[in-house]
C-alpha cells in the first residue's frame, strides 16, 4: 500500500501562481522566526527551543492543502513558526511559549492549532480523537498531526495509527523525517524500509514524498485530505528532508552529524531550491525576496513585542487547571500571594 509520490516538482498543477508565492513567503517567515527564536535564547530572552530549518516546505506545503476554517493542526514543536496560514495568533503565541509565558499555549477560538507538544508522539492519539470527534459530530474537515521520525518509535504512534485505521478517522498522520532524532539517525531508529511503510501495520495508505518540495507536500496532503473528508479514512505521509540546524538551542550536532551529509543537505535547503524554482518560473526575484524578508522580520518583531508586553501574574499557574480551583489550591494561591507580598486574588 506504500507508494512513493513521483509527481514532478515542476508541475504545481493545482496551485495558482500567487499561492506559490505565498508559500515561499510563509517559508521565509518560518525561517526568520526560527532564527530569531534561536537568537532570543542566546540572549537569555527565551528558553530552549527547536528550529524549523529544513522542514519549512513540509509545514507550509501542508498548511496550504488544509482549510484553516475547518481543519485542525496538531503539531509537535518545530512547526508553529510555519503555520501563518492558520492565523497570525499562532506566531504570537509561539513567541510567548518559547519565552516561557503562560499565555503561550492559548489560541483563540477560530485558530485551529494546538500548542507545541514536548512529550513525543502523545499528540498523535489526541489528533485521532479529535478527528473521531469531528466524524461523530458530522463536522467538516480533518485533523493533521505532525511528528518526527524518532517519534514513530513510541507506542503512541502505533496505537493511534492502528485506531485511526479501525475508525476510518479523518486524520492525516504526517511524519517529518528530518533524518535525526537528536543524535539518533534513521537506521538506528528502525529497520523498516521507510516510515511510510509502517502504514502497513494500520492497513492504511502510506505515502513517501520529497519533504523539501512544498508542491509535492501540498499534493500529498491535498490527496490525503480528500480521502479524510470523503470518509475513506486516514493516510500516513512521510516527508523526507534533513535537519539543517542543531536539534534545539541546547544541542551540539557537530558531535554526531557528519559534516559532509549536512553540506549535501544544505544544497537541498527548501528555501533555496523552491526559490530557485519560482525564479525560474518567473514568479520570484530579489526584490520579492527582500520584501518577503522584511515583512517576515516585521511580523516576528511585532510578535516579540507583543510577548514582551503581555503582563504576567506569578500565580497564573493556579488558573485553568480546573474550571474552578479546589479549596486546597485556593489556600495555596493565597499563601503564594502572601509570600510574594501581593494582595489576595480578587
Amino acid at each position: 500500500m506504500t507508494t512513493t509520490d513521483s509527481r514532478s516538482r515542476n508541475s504545481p498543477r493545482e496551485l495558482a501562481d500567487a499561492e506559490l508565492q505565498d508559500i515561499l513567503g510563509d517559508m521565509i517567515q518560518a525561517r526568520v522566526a526560527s532564527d530569531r527564536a534561536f537568537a532570543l535564547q542566546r540572549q537569555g530572552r527565551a528558553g530552549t527551543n527547536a528550529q524549523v530549518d529544513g522542514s519549512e516546505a513540509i509545514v507550509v506545503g501542508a498548511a496550504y492543502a488544509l482549510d484553516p476554517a475547518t481543519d485542525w493542526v496538531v503539531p509537535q514543536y518545530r512547526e508553529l513558526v510555519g503555520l501563518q496560514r492558520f492565523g497570525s495568533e499562532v506566531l504570537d503565541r509561539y513567541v510567548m511559549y518559547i519565552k516561557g509565558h503562560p499565555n503561550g499555549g492559548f489560541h483563540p477560538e477560530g485558530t485551529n492549532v494546538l500548542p507545541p507538544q514536548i512529550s513525543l508522539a502523545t499528540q498523535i492519539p489526541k489528533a485521532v480523537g479529535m478527528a473521531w470527534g469531528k466524524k461523530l459530530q458530522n463536522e467538516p474537515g480533518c485533523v493533521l498531526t505532525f511528528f518526527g521520525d524518532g517519534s514513530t518509535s513510541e507506542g503512541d504512534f502505533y496505537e493511534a495509527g492502528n485506531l485511526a485505521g479501525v475508525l476510518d478517522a479523518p486524520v492525516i498522520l504526517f511524519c517529518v523525517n528530518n533524518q535525526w532524532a537528536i543524535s539518533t539517525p534513521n537506521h538506528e531508529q528502525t529497520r523498516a524500509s521507510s516510515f511510510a511503510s509502517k502504514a502497513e501495520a494500520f492497513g492504511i495508505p502510506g505515502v513517501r514524498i520529497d519533504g523539501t518540495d512544498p508542491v509535492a507536500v501540498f499534493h500529498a496532503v491535498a490527496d490525503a485530505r480528500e480521502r479524510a473528508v470523503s470518509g475513506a479514512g486516514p493516510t500516513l505521509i512521510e516527508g523526507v528532508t534533513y535537519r539543517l540546524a542543531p536539534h534545539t538551542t541546547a544541542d551540539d550536532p557537530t558531535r554526531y552529524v557528519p559534516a559532509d551529509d549536512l553540506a549535501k543537505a544544505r544544497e537541498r535547503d527548501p528555501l533555496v531550491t523552491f526559490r530557485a524554482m519560482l525564479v525560474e518560473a518567473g514568479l520570484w526575484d530579489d526584490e520579492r525576496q527582500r520584501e518577503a524578508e522584511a515583512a517576515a522580520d516585521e511580523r516576528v518583531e511585532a510578535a516579540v513585542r507583543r510577548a514582551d508586553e503581555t503582563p504576567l501574574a506569578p500565580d497564573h499557574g493556579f488558573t485553568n487547571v480546573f474550571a474552578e480551583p479546589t479549596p486546597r489550591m485556593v489556600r495555596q494561591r493565597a499563601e503564594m500571594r502572601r509570600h510574594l507580598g501581593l494582595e489576595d486574588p480578587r
Partner: protein
Amino acid sequence: MTAAADPVGATPMNMLSAINHTLHREMARDDRVIVFGEDVAKSGGVFRATDGLQAEFGATRVVDMPLAEGVIIGSAVGLAASGMVPVPEIQFLGFAYQAFHQIAGQLARLRYRTDGRLNAAVTVRAPFGGGVRTPELHSEAIESQLANIPGLKIAMPASAADAKGLLATAIRDPDPVMFLEPLRGYRAVSDPVPDGDHLVPFGEARTVSEGDDLVIIAWSYMVEIARQAADRLRTEGVSVQVLDLRTIVPLDVEAIAAAVERCGRVVVVQEAPETCGFASEVIATINDEAFYSLEAPVARVSGYDHPYPVGMLEDDYVPSVERVLAAVRRTLEMAP
C-alpha cells in the same frame, strides 16, 4: 457534608446497577456523552457495568476499542477537545499504567496547556480493589499516584447512591475525573439509590456513622470495612465516627479537621501499600489543620509494602475488620 439531591424516591441497587443506571441516564441526557473501552459494547463490559448501552445508544456512541489503554485515554482527550464528553473505561485500574503518560501529561493538562481554551471533560471509569481473587494488576489501589498528578479529580464512591451521584457529577464536570470503582463493592454493596436526577458534589465527605471517641477515615470499599468495625465497637460501647471521603481530589479538609477536633483520635484505612498511600496525605492534612486536637498518633491500616499478592494471600493483605479493630483499640489506649 450532605448530598445535594432532593430525590422523589429511592430504589435499592448494588453499585454495579447504580453505575449502569447512571450511564444510561447520562447518555440519554447529553448526546455528546460517548462510552468506549475494551469489551464495553457488545459484551456490556467484563462486569456488565456498560450492559445495554450499545443496544440503546448505538454503535457509534458505545464503542469496543482496540486493546490499547494509551490511545483509549489519548483519544478521549482529543474527543473532549472536539467537544464530545468521553467516558472511557480502563478494564482494570492496574492497566492505567499503560496510559500514565496520557493521563499525567495530557488528560490532566489539556486545559492548563491551552490556557483555558480547551476542556478535558473526560470521566475515566476503572474498577480496582482486592478481595475477589483476580489475577495480578486487577486489584492495585493506586489512587495516591493519581492524586500526586495535578489536574485530575478523583472520585471513589463507597455506596450505590454515591456511585450514582458522583458519576453523574463526574460526567457533567468540565474537568477530567478518575472514577474508581471498588470491585468488591460491585455486588456486595447495596443501598437505596435516589431516583431521578441525583448529583453528589465533589469535595464533600459523608459521615457514615456518628461517634466521638475516634474517627475512622476511609474511602471506597474500605468504608464498608470501617462501618463493620464501627458497628462491632458500638456493641462494646465505643462510639466511632466513620468518615467517607468520597473524593480524594478535591479533599474535604474541613470535614476531616472537624472530625479530628471532635474525636481527637484517628484511624485511616486504605487498600494501597503503606508508603505514600493516600493515608499519608490524610495524616499530613490532619497535621496541618488539626494538630493540636490530636490525642494520639493517627493509626494507618494499609496494604503492605509488597506487590498486591496472589489469591491465597490476599485476605491477609487487604485491611480487614479485625485489623481495623486492632488499630482502633491500640489508638484508644494511647496516652493523650
